[in-house]
């Protein structure tokens, strides 16, 4: 027995024939030495270098941009417009981001198809909006018409979200994490192409009530009316959601399920129902965002969910996924970054057409946030425990 065991009790670099004895073990520790480069924390070095490089690019780029000769420089009004647009786009992103955040919080999965939930809402309400626009109802009763469109969009988004949960995710709930994520990627592809099949590939104009056109002056700064509406609606609904989650029984059940599904069910909480409710709330927000988005850009298409979806997810991560205020903050920041960033950081380097690189920008931010602060801005940032 001893002999057999002794077989593994000798040095790593020892040759087969070396004498084996238990005593060897104690001195072996000294035999293994780490070389100097093994003590260098390489990952951290790379990160620091990367961080410094990026900060340098941003700072230098900004300075160069602001130092451009008068003729090539953006005016103050340009910047104000960039910012205003960033905020309004950010508000929409925040509303989509909430859907990602809620679902992630409760199921620990990225609902990759949430962008399509958003698209479903916008697209489905088109047919009502279009009919109202043609009949003149949209401009005669803009509030009522818009509310109906929102209701339709919300219904469609909620339905899509619930079907998604029921058919694609629920059967996989206890599977390893990657499985539902891959299913979500599939579902996203499926939904996009299903809508394309239903309604055709071409973009469709989405009418906007005339009252929402034009500008509104706030503190002497002209804003698009639509932008103001978007911001107000987003802010209100986020406040409402915060109340729902922190103060109501439904909210408590959602938090309980998010934390420990099994124990929640022991408390008598219907876990399946709570998850459905969570998806539905995400759908409500996506639906509202869908109409706002469609009215802002006055156009819908089956691919419209993908990029906003990614940007919104980035926003959710940036803010700290699982956190509602985080989603709001993240949305605003991403919106700003998309609209101000390329102009501010890249123009100075003389990079042609800086806005063509804006999507690359979003992803760069995503990478940086995850690398340097994986918990997000409002998250804990703590690594996972053993």
């Amino acid at each position, binding site marked *: *027995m001893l002999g*057999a065991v*002794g*077989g*593994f009790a000798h*040095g790593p670099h020892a040759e*087969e024939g070396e004498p084996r004895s238990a005593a060897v073990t104690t001195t072996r*520790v000294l035999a293994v030495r780490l070389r100097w480069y093994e003590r260098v924390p390489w990952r951290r070095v790379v990160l620091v270098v990367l961080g410094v490089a990026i900060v340098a690019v941003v700072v230098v780029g900004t300075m160069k941009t602001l130092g451009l000769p008068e003729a090539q420089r953006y005016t103050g009004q340009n910047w104000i417009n960039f910012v205003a647009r960033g905020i309004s786009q950010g508000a929409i992103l925040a509303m989509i981001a909430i859907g990602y955040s809620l679902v992630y919080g409760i199921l620990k999965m990225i609902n990759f198809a949430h962008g399509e939930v958003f698209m479903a809402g916008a697209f489905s309400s088109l047919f009502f909006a279009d009919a109202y626009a043609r009949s003149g109802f949209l401009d005669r009763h803009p509030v009522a018409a818009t509310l109906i469109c929102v209701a339709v969009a919300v219904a469609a988004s909620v339905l899509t979200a619930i079907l998604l949960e029921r058919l694609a995710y629920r059967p996989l709930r206890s599977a390893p994490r990657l499985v539902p994520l891959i299913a979500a990627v599939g579902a996203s592809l499926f939904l996009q192409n299903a809508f394309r099949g239903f309604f055709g590939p071409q973009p469709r104009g989405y009418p906007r009530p005339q009252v929402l056109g034009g500008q509104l002056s706030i503190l002497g700064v002209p804003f698009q009316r639509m932008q103001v509406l978007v911001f107000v609606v987003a802010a209100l609904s986020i406040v409402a959601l915060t109340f729902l989650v922190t103060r109501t029984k439904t909210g408590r059940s959602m938090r309980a399920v998010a934390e420990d599904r099994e124990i929640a069910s022991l408390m008598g909480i219907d876990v399946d129902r709570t998850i459905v409710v969570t998806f539905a709330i995400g759908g409500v927000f996506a639906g509202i965002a869908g109409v706002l988005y469609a009215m802002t850009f006055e156009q819908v298409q089956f691919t419209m969910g993908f990029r906003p979806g990614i940007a919104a997810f980035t926003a959710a991560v940036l803010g700290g996924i699982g956190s509602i205020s985080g989603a709001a903050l993240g949305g605003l920041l991403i919106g700003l970054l998309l609209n101000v960033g390329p102009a501010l950081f890249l123009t100075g380097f003389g990079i042609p057409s800086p806005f063509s690189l804006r999507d690359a920008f979003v992803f760069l931010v995503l990478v940086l946030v995850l690398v340097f602060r994986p918990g997000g801005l409002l998250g804990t940032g703590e690594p996972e425990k053993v």
Partner: protein
Amino acid sequence: MSEDRIALEVVGLTKTFGGLAALNGLDLRVREREIVSVIGPNGAGKSTLFNVITGLYEPDEGDVRLAGRSIVGLKPHQIVRLGIARTFQSVKLFPNMTILENAMVGQHCRSRAGVLGAIVRTPAVRREEARIRERARAALAFFGPRLVGYREEQPAFVLSYANRRRLEMARALATEPSVLLLDEPTAGMNPRETLEMRDNIVRMRDELGLTVLVIEHDMRVVKGVSDRVVACDYGRKIAEGSYEEVAHDEQVIEAYLGRRAVG
């Protein structure tokens, strides 16, 4: 053979999580070929101590020395290579790898074949692979017939609870350590298995010449294996000495054992 050489030394170790000190200036010395038990209530910082020693956490203050050299700041895999192996409180295996493969992973730090070698499969690489296999088998054989033979090719998850613990230990042995850290090696075992495990721990010292640091709640095991017992509470050492000394220490009884257990 100087039995008094210090194998592992922990000096003034401090580690806090969000303001709470899990370790608070802990000192600990383990001599070569000694079995030291660490006891203490939950949250006393015992597992944190293991995590710091094995490099999973970095300490806020203090030093960990293996045979006199500081190992603080090294990565877990480097520390394994230097000769410290461990098991976990909740058994952590690679459940879908076979039993033999689990043990072979232990040999990873004792082998060096690289990408090119693996692709070309040079004779040296083949020899090394054979050696890995042989030593992994030897480690499994330490626990008698339970993990060898046809069982080698079974996935680890089919094992019973006790055998999982044994396999985890065999995997640790396969890293050819000089110091072995065992975190509650008998938790969840029935009395028969517990006794067997107790004997195995003693054999590790006697037959393999290992230095063993063990966290244990079962006082019968602590009594049966320990050369020395260290009691902790709130990340601090509150008593140290032979089992009898520590078991009758007022502070230890108060914080950990309770009146009944001693009687």
